[in-house]
């Protein structure tokens, strides 16, 4: 599979960071659906204006799991304002080599984080 994905994608696929759920999350966002094959659920814990903790659960391919892992790493400890600026392009750049057809995975990760933040802001 070395020709399909970068080492970094495979590393995040094998050892996903921030995997799991947060029981008392301040915001939760679910994106994707079972028809398209990828479903991401993002949980955030907010302290002050910072994302103190973030976790994800993903049903999907290698790129979907790796992009969730990478995206959560990118926003953990960041302010809400900074996290909202995260783009799929940044996630894709971090992922390195992966098939172009998988770009939607990085979009899904961006949307998942934004949806969790939205949920937090609504509840506030």
């Amino acid at each position, binding site marked *: *599979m070395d020709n399909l994905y970068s080492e970094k994608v495979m590393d995040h696929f094998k050892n996903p960071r921030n995997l799991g759920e947060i029981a008392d999350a301040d915001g939760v966002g679910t994106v994707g659906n079972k*028809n398209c094959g990828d*479903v991401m659920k993002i949980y955030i814990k907010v302290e002050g204006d910072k994302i103190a903790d973030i976790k994800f659960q993903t*049903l*999907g391919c290698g790129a*979907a799991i790796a992009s969730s892992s990478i995206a959560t790493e990118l926003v953990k400890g960041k302010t809400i304002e900074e996290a909202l600026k995260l783009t799929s392009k940044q996630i894709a750049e971090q992922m390195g080599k992966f098939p172009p*057809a*998988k770009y939607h995975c990085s979009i899904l990760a961006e949307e998942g984080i934004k949806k969790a933040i939205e949920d937090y802001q609504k509840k506030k």
Partner: protein
Amino acid sequence: MKRIYLDHSATTSVDPQVLEAMLPYFSEKFGNASSVHSFGQEARGAVDNSRHAIAEFLNCKSTEIIFTSGGSESDNLAIKGVVEESEIEKPHVVTSSFEHHAVLDTIKELELDGKIEVTFINPNKDGLIEVKDIEAAIKPNTVLVSIMYVNNEIGTVQPIRAIGQMLEKLNKEREQKVYFHADAVQAAEYFDMNVDTLHVDLLTMSAHKIYGPKGIGLLYVRSDVPIKHQIVGGGQEYKKRAGTENVAGIVGFAKAVELIEESRNQGIKEKRDRLIDGLLKIPNSQLNGSKEFRSPANVNISFINAEGEAILLNLDMEGIAASTGSACTSGSLEPSHVLLSLGLKPEQCHGSIRFTLGRETIEDEIDSVLEIMPDIIEKLRKMSPFN
């Protein structure tokens, strides 16, 4: 790491005896079979002998075999060849919705170009085409029925002989004959390939699925079936397919055919069943396609809430090679058209895994898969939001 290859429907290794038979035809006996001199005649002799051996296997005449570059070209030639040679203004073609893309996309392209009318027959939920559905689809302008012998994804065996007999009966009363093409690429290793008992007019075969080399296949065309060549040039293959003969490939193809009987994996069906039964012990799993009418090499199982490519990556890390009908490996984001045609939901397609056994598959390898798979599925399900 010990590697386990369970993707024999994708391709097989070249049998050492096949390779040995081919080797002289690269640097030593390299002649062009169309040349008059001794170099050419050496090559011509090898092509003729190989064609004769394969004709015996198919129970047809040597002149009814057209060598091609492989299964896809044979399928293209069969369909376009029959359609373009037809005198009907807009011929009608009947096929199934779960054919290999070499058949399906050729037919869809002709349809899109307005050159043919098409009826796509859906398989039943067991992945089997019913003869009565084909019969009901036949129209006065029908010129061709194309149905695969063994489905490449789910391994279900289609009633080729019964369809052939039905069409033969219909043809007796018809002015416009309906020709019958079967893509038998996945069938040659295990099933009857006698074109007479199958009652087929055209049949596709490929060498690299039966331990022969890649880049060589054939189309059997019964002598009274008019077809239009698709490649023009030097007049080779009875003017049906131009191009200098792939002599080494043809020799290897014939050797591979010769080895089918004696090299077959005895007990492959028992190994397959052990793999199926073992994998179905994993909760929320299902076998796709009939177990009864199924290739002894094919296992295709869907796991709910585990995605196929992620399963493949995990298997690959353990050295195990398989394939999936998930959208994520298709490049098109569409799940397998075969699984969808059975009426499966997309989520069932995304979690499908195909293992295809071969001659060298041993019990130990089945054990390894059965040991590893439950952990992989459990791990992926735990990662998902649906655990």
